[in-house]
């Protein structure tokens, strides 16, 4: 019988940069965040699935979501609960604003120290930054081994996990002692969908600030009565973090300039899909030795 595991999944709510529509840029050329839907970072869903697979393998294990973000990021904790997570923690404080990956990793590591999980699972990277830095940096801050680019958990024992990694040019199978941090690739299995019974059970799960904002007696009573409906909210003080290492102050990297992308105008030769046009194009390309 394998031991029960305490698993924490690091997840992020991100703007859906993959579906940038025409209204994504404002007239003044800045990004219109309001026009981008906020979603569960895709590879964090792959990470959640790995956590749920572990929970299936080791009954009695718990899966908690840890996310840092504004109050609305509680949405992804609920989403994760609908899919199988036991609960979650929202790390939220204005002092976190402006954090680069190092300051973010520091904040998360402070929260993780309180949780002391056996396994920390994160998506490889978030689609709004694509840096893939937070996983390894959290591991370093906690002094834990890391296994990145994970695709499959091959084996889990009391003190060791065996993981298959998908690299650019092949695969690698590695073993790591517990506790440890793993980051999961998009090539890993997709996350299981929301489960109807779980949606019914957890749909009223709220953070304290959500309850305050709603001012709904029924919700208050419900969350008071049922412990599992409480999504915990932690501030800088709750995780005993050092202000100097957070936000802009704690971020070694600074943004010097931001340039909105404007393509340089260059005249393209225009063609239609008429036979004559395509024929002329091919003749031109062959004549210029671009083709053939």
């Amino acid at each position, binding site marked *: 019988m394998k031991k029960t595991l305490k698993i924490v999944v690091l997840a992020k709510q991100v*703007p859906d*940069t*993959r579906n*940038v529509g025409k209204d*994504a840029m404002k007239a003044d050329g800045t*990004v219109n965040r309001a026009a981008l839907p906020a979603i569960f970072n895709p590879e964090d869903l792959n990470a959640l699935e790995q956590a749920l697979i572990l929970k299936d393998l080791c009954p009695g294990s718990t899966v908690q979501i840890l996310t840092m973000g504004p109050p609305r990021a509680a949405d992804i904790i609920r989403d994760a609960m609908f899919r199988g997570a036991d609960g979650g923690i929202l790390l939220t404080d204005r002092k976190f604003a402006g954090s680069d*990956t*190092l300051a973010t990793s520091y904040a998360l590591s402070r929260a993780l120290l309180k949780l002391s999980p056996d396994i920390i699972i994160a998506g490889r990277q978030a*689609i*709004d*930054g694509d*840096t*893939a*830095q*937070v*996983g*390894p*940096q959290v*591991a*370093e*801050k906690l002094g834990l*081994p*890391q*296994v990145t*680019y994970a695709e499959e958990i091959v084996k889990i024992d009391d003190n060791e996990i065996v993981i298959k990694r998908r690299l*650019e*040019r092949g*695969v*690698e*199978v*590695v*073993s*790591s002692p517990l506790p440890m941090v793993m980051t999961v690739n*998009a090539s890993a299995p997709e996350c299981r969908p929301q489960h109807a019974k779980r949606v019914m059970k957890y749909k009223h799960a709220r953070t304290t600030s959500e309850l305050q904002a709603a001012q709904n007696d029924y919700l208050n009573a419900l969350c008071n009565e049922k412990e599992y409906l409480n999504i915990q909210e932690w501030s800088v003080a709750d995780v005993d973090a050092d202000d100097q290492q957070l936000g802009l102050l704690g971020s*070694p*990297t*600074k*943004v*010097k*300039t*931001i*340039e*909105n*992308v404007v*393509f*340089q105008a260059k005249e*393209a*030769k*225009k*063609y239609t*899909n008429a*036979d004559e046009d*395509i*024929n002329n*194009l*091919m*003749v031109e390309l*062959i004549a210029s030795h*671009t*083709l053939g």
Partner: protein
Amino acid sequence: MNNIIVYCEIENGKVADVSLELLTKGRELADTLGCKLEALAIGYNLQGIEKELAKYGADTVWMADGEELAPYRTLPHCSIICGLFTEEKPQIALFGASSVGRDLAPRVSSTLHSGLTADCTSLVIGDHKDNKSGTEYKNLLYQIRPAFGGNIIATIINPDHRPQMATVREGVMKKEEAKTPGKGEIKVVDYKKYLKDTDLAVKIIDRQIEERKINVKGASIIVSGGYGVGSKENFKLLYELAEVLGAEVGASRAAVDAGFAEHERQIGQTGVTVRPKLYIACGISGQIQHTAGMDQSSMVISINTDPNAPINKIADYAITGDLLEVIPKMIKYYKANSK
């Protein structure tokens, strides 16, 4: 001291292309700064590797050579790098944005609290004045990268922390032997003093490294498809055109995410960067995260139903029409005219 160090990836005694590309860039930056370019090689049986590294401009080759150091594992490599950097205090450290560099560099930057910019598309030396404190900084590394899904280009700096660290994807920088080769002077790293027992806790059980089969990077003509191709089935048309033209098939991230094409074909900021003689963009709208990986193509043809697609702004030829009609015509008229 205060030089530029490039972490060099070595697989089976061969230096990775991305590391040679970084040395090429590092040479240029070192010349601008008037400092040395140093290569750091960590692995096993490294003798002779300094010759290759010197060709690309390395003045010094730091060598940590030991059986436990190959194949690559995060913790021992990280400890050695952090130990060496603490003593040598490089001003700039460059890593490939490969599955090794993206695993390693964040951990190094966290240990040294030095700040790291991932997937830079350009590295330039420049000055900076902090508007709040009025402090002026000379000769910083501008780390330039697209961000926010490619809708913005950000210039990142690390004014107060060293080394200034950046990763760069394979193919983004040019690989070119230095006009005057570096000395390639070997300095042996006494690495064991940096290693902790726990650094060897992660064990490699099995490893199957394949040479890349799909070679989008090496192709002189690329037929590339985006989300607008519509389906995996429709992608077959692109393979037909590629077959006729002797081209390789590429894809945008949206097409790869939709399952139309393999990940190895992905072109753009998070895929490979290509500079073919001819790039045929089919059903690709032309988001910057894609164009960042192909805008140095000698010639671009776009096929798109939307005459105002952003890709047309960088295209030499813009064909407005449905690719399902256009591609068969291209095949037909290429065959008709090429004899």
